[in-house]
């Protein structure tokens, strides 16, 4: 009886969802975006953003891997020997990525074929390693899990924006549905879309350099909209 009364402060539940937790989710999407503010994970943002559906699958995969590697790292954070912590983190990431790869291969083989090597390359995505080092190895599991989801979302949002721009101007389509310009089968089907039928697809948008330009423009736009970011660098 006496023991229980000693606790004066009401103990927070493990799965509480307060202001701090909400910030964990919203911060990486805007103020601390992994791509436009921290400039991490650029390589995959270049590679898988030619088509919107690829970017969507990639975002889901990264959110999954990031959330769960954060969770597992946080769960065993007190037991990980400092000397080998990076290797342990890599093992956790690699395991989850392999799980994603095997599952995707079983569920949707064509998408797996299209993403090919990029799923495997999630292992080297610096956002994940960065979050494990900076957050999960020093914070409780629930918060780490949310942090993972938040950062994954921040990454995914940018990926989807870039992919939408690139697919729209590069192929005149979104998610494979033709919107402007000629149909993708323009060699055999000369029918044009009723909207901007004269538009000729910009092949540069399909190539990797265009992703670099789009990211650059996004960073610029993000900084001019969000005044907090102006003095960061």
């Amino acid at each position: 009886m006496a023991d229980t009364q000693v606790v004066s402060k009401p103990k927070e539940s493990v799965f509480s969802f307060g202001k701090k937790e909400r910030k964990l989710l919203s911060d990486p999407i805007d103020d601390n975006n992994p791509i436009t503010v921290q400039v991490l994970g650029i390589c995959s943002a270049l590679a898988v953003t030619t088509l919107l559906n690829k970017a969507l699958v990639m975002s889901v995969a990264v959110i999954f891997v990031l959330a769960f590697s954060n969770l597992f790292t946080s769960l065993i954070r007190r037991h990980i020997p400092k000397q080998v912590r990076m290797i342990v983190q890599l093992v956790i990431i690699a395991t989850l990525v392999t799980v994603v790869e095997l599952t995707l291969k079983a569920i949707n083989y064509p998408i797996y074929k299209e993403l090919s090597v990029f799923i495997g390359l999630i292992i080297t995505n610096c956002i994940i390693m960065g979050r494990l080092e900076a957050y999960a190895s020093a914070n409780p599991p629930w918060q780490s899990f949310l942090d993972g989801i938040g950062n994954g979302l921040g990454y995914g949002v940018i990926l989807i924006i870039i992919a939408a721009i690139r697919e729209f101007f590069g192929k005149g389509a979104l998610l494979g549905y033709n919107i402007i310009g000629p149909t993708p089968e323009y060699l055999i089907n000369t029918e044009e879309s009723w909207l901007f039928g004269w538009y000729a697809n910009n092949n540069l948008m399909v190539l990797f350099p265009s992703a670099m330009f789009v990211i650059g423009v996004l960073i610029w736009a993000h900084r001019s909209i969000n005044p907090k970011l102006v003095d960061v660098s």
Partner: protein
Amino acid sequence: MHSTSSIIRFVLILTSLVALILSFLNTGLKAKHEANEALYAKKAILSAVSNKLDNDIKKMSDNSIEEIFANQITQTVVNVEGETLSPAQVVESGEYKNGKAEDVDLGKERRKPVQDRFLPVFEYTAKDGKKYYIVSVRGNGLWDEIWGNIALEDDLNTIAGVSFDHKAETPGLGAEIKDNKGFPAQFVGKKIYDDNGNYKSVTVRKGGAKDPYFEVDGISGATITCDGVTDMLVEGLKYYEPYFSELKSNS
């Protein structure tokens, strides 16, 4: 600070746990993976005759693909001399378990000496009774391998349809051989033999086709991939030549 032995213990436990989970998952999903892979290959083969199918191949269910393969397709494996090999002979080589044409991996075959190669042939019988011969070819694009399935009409000369795929061609340029439906569509109606019966194959010409029967338009900005397609067709179809003349002399 952790002692060295505790570090080793931790790492050992972690890695064996991870290895266990992954190997369980891999073994558990292996059957599904193989089925998916086989189905993907079958779809690629059927898409060579996509305009001869009753339904749109993209909307076809997995079962109907299997059904077509079971009922309307006869598989044979031949060699470069044009001899038809029985499944037992293929199995004998030890590489393919069932010895069917759908098992033959051309990527592997390309690395063998020409006379030892197995060549898959798929004979598709359409609902109206017409026969199509689908053969597989493989070659090099700009970055990596490209491959395709070529469907020939029963005169073994006119192309009824093709489907291409690639490993790593540039999206928007070389990858158009697969992504742009217009590129494979050009091959329909082209011939591989001239009027005198000489083997010519089909050329992908940069700057636009000049010959109505033996050339198709190239893709701007993808010259090397297109040349790769030309070489792949010339080389790949040549291996089937003896088999074609065998078929013609029999009929």
